[in-house]
């Protein structure tokens, strides 16, 4: 064991000396409501390793998205980080000022938000939107040929043809837009990508293509991915490790096969037994 472990934590460490891309310890989020403070995330620990996907599962309201937003400094009022550390590249994201954090976003940690494909700017061509993540300074130093080549190479990593750069979002299908969002998240080669339900609202075949793209980007660029979702079947396809969240706590964290096939916590057992199966046994009618 290389890293210090908190004895009270539910953390499972991969027994190796690898440095996590994102190392979160004791993360607490509190909402200051008129009725008093409510603890939405109760001191969670987890690590995302380079080139690996950590799945965050749990029902709506368990705190999975809140945890991700806290790491990115995107909690909305009255939520606030009440404690903990989130280390990327030796820097604690939770201790950064607003300006420093803005610089860290996209460069250290990129977000693919829920319904990302609907957050593309409808009046801007895809190529320009991909370049938006650069500062205007960096853009000015780039020639048109350089920026075109960069955009085309990034589109290629998500299996989109070069001409997509000249299209507007409405000219793309949902799956293509979602792959543009993956390209945008990997634009500045971040250490970590946080993806919040990146394939929900897609048909299963399209979902599989988008998931496959995310997996390929992760393997090729060695970015660590925190994948938030509630579809355990999808997690089984993508995640190396899975964390099960309930009421602001991680109740189980381990290798995907271990957690999904032999869950030890009663809540994970319940969650897994309630997945509707296609082609398995139909529930009694």
């Amino acid at each position, binding site marked *: 064991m290389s890293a210090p472990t908190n004895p009270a934590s539910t953390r499972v460490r991969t027994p190796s000396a690898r440095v996590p891309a994102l190392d979160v310890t004791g993360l607490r989020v509190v909402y200051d409501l008129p009725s008093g403070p409510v603890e939405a995330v109760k001191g969670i620990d987890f690590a995302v390793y380079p080139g690996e996907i950590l799945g965050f599962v749990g*029902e*709506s309201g368990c705190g999975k998205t809140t945890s991700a937003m806290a790491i990115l400094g995107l909690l909305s009022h009255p939520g606030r980080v009440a404690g903990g550390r989130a280390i990327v590249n030796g820097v604690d994201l939770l201790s950064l000022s607003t300006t420093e954090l803005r610089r860290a976003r996209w460069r250290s940690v990129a977000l693919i938000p829920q319904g990302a494909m609907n957050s593309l700017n409808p009046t801007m061509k895809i190529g320009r939107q991909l370049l938006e993540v650069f500062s205007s300074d960096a853009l000015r130093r780039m020639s048109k040929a350089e920026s075109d080549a960069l955009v085309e190479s990034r589109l290629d990593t998500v*299996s989109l*043809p070069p001409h997509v750069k000249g299209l507007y979002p409405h000219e793309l299908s*949902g799956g293509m837009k979602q792959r543009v969002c993956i390209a945008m998240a990997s634009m500045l080669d971040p250490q970590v990508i946080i993806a919040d339900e990146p394939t929900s609202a897609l*048909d*299963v*075949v*399209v*979902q*599989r*293509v988008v*998931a*496959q793209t995310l997996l390929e980007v992760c393997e090729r660029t060695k970015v660590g991915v925190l994948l938030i979702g*509630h*579809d*355990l*079947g*999808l997690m*089984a*396809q993508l995640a190396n490790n899975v964390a099960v969240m309930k009421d602001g706590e991680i109740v189980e964290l381990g290798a995907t096969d271990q957690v*999904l*096939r032999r869950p030890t916590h009663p809540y994970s057992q319940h969650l*897994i037994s309630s*997945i*509707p*199966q*296609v*082609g*398995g046994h*139909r*529930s009694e*009618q």
Partner: protein
Amino acid sequence: MTALLEVHGADKRYAAPDGSVVHALRSVDLSIPDAPPTIVTVAGESGSGKTTLAQAILGLVPLSGGSITYRGRELSTLDAASRRKYRREVQAVFQDPYGAFNPFYKVRHPLELSLRNFRVAPRAEHAALMADAVKLVGLDPAVLDKHPHQLSGGQRQRLMFARAYLLRPRLVVADEPVSMVDASLRRSILDVMRRMRDEEGISFIYITHDLATAYEVSDRLLLMLKGAVVEDGPTASVVERPQHPYARLLMESVPSVERRWPGRIEVTGARVGTPEGCGFYHRCPVALDACRATMPPLEKSGDRRVACYADEQSRQEGAA
């Protein structure tokens, strides 16, 4: 015996703004038996034509070709009284249970309106009928006096089924009724459909892209792709042993804890199809030359019908 509802050769073309023609329905056949009450799923990805089919059945979209007959009579020839009867006996539940209610009124309002509109019963009996309907969908009659914002999406959607039930329909066309409802509440809505089928003898056309719920609730499954039905058969056998190459790709792509996706999907199709040919031609691993130019017809194949030349060929070889 006459079928309850029969769609025959339904064809629908839309003119796109750029002058091209979108073929939304390509000679679709669908039949709902008069008995027993049946839940038929129409499944497919976005753009497959499943909602166009539902809207044609509801009379919201005129067909470009083909016919829809209800208890032996063609819809387009119905007189006003019969059309009104059809409107009562074939009910609809739509995707969005949030947009279906007027926020200013209590939720009893749309239920009452339906009763009054169709003069279902004397006004004195309305309260009892509504209480019955609300109980059937597993809610407490006290919800009738709430406003929409006080109810969850699942409760609202169940009220929409209660509203349909008030009119004692023979058939309910439910277009993605669970897709906007929280995953944990979906089962309660599927239960309502099942109960209405088993206890009240109501048939359903269940439009969805979600194979898990289709598998759970329906008796028969029609799978559509690019406006055409590619496979039609008993739900369990289509899901467990899909025959059409697209159906196979679809079923193996459903993410399951039990098994890994086999291999990678090539994103760019291997070849280019034509609008007249099979909608799966460009990605199909077993495509024949004939699949490019013409849509294979639905042919009987064991317990189902499949629209695939390659499947037909292998059947003939098997028989020979």
